[in-house]
């Protein structure tokens, strides 16, 4: 086809020194102005595909490429960096490593400056790009002072200033909070609809892709396993699951109720419910009412960590906590949610003494933490940081797990045994001698968590455990946490932006905004308060919206909603037959 701007035919790529093909016979044709989404688990070869499109693989990444690649009439591997860079713009997930200027303006100009263009034409491009990406007014700001969403918008503006016809975005939202995600998806929509750029979007956020992409490809182990229009692809629930891609909730619900036509939006789902069901599917529900018994009240006397009227002001003068009262009970699974800057991390860092309240008190296991150092508190309260790379210090998996217990003087024999147990629990037993850096991000995240678990604390605080992970990896982490709670009686506190995770695992949700606790209750209760959700800039899962629309009550999972529907139907059928 003449209008194909990207044409890949039977493309194979393997990295130097690796036996496995990162890309294994990929064929892809993209028309000018199309928006194509590529889904798939980590390690499926998505990023390699992106690099093949602008020639950085194999020009920059050592490896061997086979097959035909034509992008905008060029063979990327054969033309120079400059030529490819002004045809195909590549944006990555981590905003920090792709910002180069001392100011936003300089950063946006970086690409054109590299091309050696004249000052006037660079400034013209910078001005336009910044205006298009809604960055006007930030010209002189230092990039590291921007919010995550603004940083990523700057990175996109910088690539866009090269005036590429094609933009390849490699998980551009993976490090962002919901607000930043929304901003980036807004930009992608604009690139596609107003600026006429051909977009290849590599993403994990299925709910957003559904209404954005023209075509969707699902990758697994270097191959496309599914492709087609979003509605076709997302309708294939079983194959999606096998490929390790999260099924959009509304779609899952549609499948569960056996709708004749798969619904993709809430409206469609509502009308699908109205239609007679084509089959009577047996619904295997994931214990729909498991999280109803929000049993805080029964265990109130066994508080493990508690904040009493805690205020905290950073040395710079920014007030981060403004009178927080919060008690966490033993054995609970608590999710702390809220916008970035709401004080979630600041609060939880008080519980193991990394931060000390400006006023108020922190109590750990009933005793004031005042004057108790972190190295003492860490025996009771384990803290897992957001980025696994910032908390893995050793050169083998095994050493990593022994690091904490050794520091707190745990019995070596007990430690060895515990480490063995943990290794098999997290499925890394065979990698005990491996350098953690060589593990995948999901494995590193599990290891980071396990390295804290190895110290056997009563409470585990886990800061954004699923950032940058795919759906399967996220579930592995959360399942492990749930196992720790159920089997070992640990108290789990997670900080998260992912409402799907909240609805699946949390028993109690604490909503924070502007340094205060503004909401506290079971997920169901929290999701039933639209004002609260808006105040904290949260978006509840689609299934909650749907169940609200259908029955005026909030349900948490598609399975639960489907069960509710079937119950209602059989009741109605019973009424009719009488």
């Amino acid at each position, binding site marked *: 086809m003449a209008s194909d701007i990207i044409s890949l035919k039977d493309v194979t790529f393997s990295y130097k020194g690796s*036996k*496995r093909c990162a890309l294994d016979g990929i064929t892809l044709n993209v028309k000018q102005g199309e928006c194509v989404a590529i889904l798939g688990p980590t390690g499926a070869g998505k990023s390699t595909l992106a690099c093949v499109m602008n020639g950085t693989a194999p020009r*920059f990444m050592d490896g061997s490429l086979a097959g035909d690649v034509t992008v905008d009439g060029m063979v990327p591997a054969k033309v120079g960096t400059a030529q490819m860079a002004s045809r195909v713009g590549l944006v990555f997930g981590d905003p920090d490593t792709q910002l180069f200027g001392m100011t936003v303006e300089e950063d946006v100009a970086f690409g054109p400056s590299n091309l050696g263009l004249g000052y006037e034409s660079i400034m013209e491009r910078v001005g336009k790009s910044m205006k298009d990406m809604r960055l006007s007014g930030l010209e002189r700001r230092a990039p590291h002072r921007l919010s995550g969403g603004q940083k990523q918008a700057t990175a996109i503006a910088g690539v866009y200033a090269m005036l590429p016809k094609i933009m390849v975005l490699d998980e551009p939202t993976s490090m962002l909070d919901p607000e930043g995600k929304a901003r980036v998806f807004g930009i992608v929509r604009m690139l596609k609809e107003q600026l006429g750029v051909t977009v290849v979007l590599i993403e994990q956020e299925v709910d957003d892709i559904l209404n954005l992409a023209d075509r969707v490809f699902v990758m697994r182990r270097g191959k496309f396993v599914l492709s087609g229009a979003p509605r076709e692809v997302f309708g294939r629930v079983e194959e999606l699951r096998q490929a390790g891609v999260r099924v959009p909730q509304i779609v899952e619900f549609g499948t569960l109720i056996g709708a004749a036509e798969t619904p993709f939006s809430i409206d469609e789902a509502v009308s699908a419910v109205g239609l007679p069901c084509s089959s009577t599917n047996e619904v295997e529900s994931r214990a729909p009412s498991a999280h109803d018994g929000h049993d805080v009240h029964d265990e109130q006397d066994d508080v493990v960590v508690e904040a009493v009227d805690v205020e905290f002001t950073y040395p710079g003068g920014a007030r981060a906590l403004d009178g927080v009262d919060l008690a966490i009970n033993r054995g609970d699974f608590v999710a702390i949610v809220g916008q970035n800057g709401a004080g979630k991390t600041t609060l939880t860092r008080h519980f193991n003494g990394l931060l000390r309240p400006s006023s108020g008190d922190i109590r750990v296991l009933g005793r004031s933490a005042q004057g108790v150092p972190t190295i003492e508190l860490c025996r009771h309260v384990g803290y897992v940081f957001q980025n696994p790379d910032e908390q893995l210090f050793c050169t*083998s998996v095994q050493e990593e797990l022994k690091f904490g217990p050794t520091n707190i003087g745990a019995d070596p024999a007990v430690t060895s045994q515990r480490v063995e147990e943990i290794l098999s629990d997290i499925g890394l037993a065979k*990698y005990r001698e*491996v350098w953690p850096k060589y593990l995948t991000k999901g494995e590193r995240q599990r290891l980071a968590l396990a390295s804290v678990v190895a110290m056997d604390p009563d409470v585990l605080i886990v800061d954004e455990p699923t950032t940058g992970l795919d759906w399967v990896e996220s579930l592995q982490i959360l399942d492990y946490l749930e196992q720790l709670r159920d089997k070992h009686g640990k108290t789990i506190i997670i900080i998260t932006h992912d409402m799907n995770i909240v609805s699946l695992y949390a028993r109690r949700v604490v909503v924070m905004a502007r340094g205060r606790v503004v909401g506290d209750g079971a997920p169901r209760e929290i999701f039933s308060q639209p004002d609260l959700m808006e105040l904290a800039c949260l978006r509840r899962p689609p299934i909650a919206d749907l169940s609200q629309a259908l029955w005026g009550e909030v349900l948490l999972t598609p399975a639960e909603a489907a069960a509710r529907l079937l119950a209602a139907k059989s009741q109605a059928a019973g009424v009719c037959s009488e």
Partner: protein
Amino acid sequence: MPLGQGALGLGVSYALALGYLVLMWFLGSILSRQYPVEHRVAWDTRTIARVTILAAVAGAGAMIKIPGPATTIALDAAAGYFAAAFFGWPVGATVAAIGCFLANALGGFASWLPMVPIYLSAMALTVTMAVFVAKKVNIVVAIVVGTIVNTITCLGPWALMIGTPLMIALLPSQVIGSAVNALVGLSVAEALKAAQNRKRPESID
């Protein structure tokens, strides 16, 4: 005692700094010739990115303070040693020099701006000399040599300008600081090289 030689001293120091660079170049070219795999560097984008990040690490390292016996010790030079041992002397010398500049800039050029160029060349020479010795003898001797060379090259110019007494006063903290940086930089490089040679997950599956 003609103290007025401060000015002249600065001039001589600049000449000395040039000498440092020449010596560095000399040792470096021996390394590049004899160990081309480790010490011949292509200045491609990847190398430039490495230099950038490691220079930033050196700058930030200036703010790690280890309370030591004489003074607190900043880890501003460790990145240079590390880079030289890990990526070859050209990268190491560049990281050491630029890192030293950034550390000074971040400290507000407290140790006197006109001296900075001399420090830069001194650091570049020191790390090159250290990896040279590490390659020819062993890492322990390299740390000792690195410490001595760093102390002499950094304090020598001061001695020329303001006399030996002040230099002797500065000596202990300089020696300890140099030694700790050499030790940390070179030993971490060894540790990371060993880690890199560990089995990869693919080979286990």
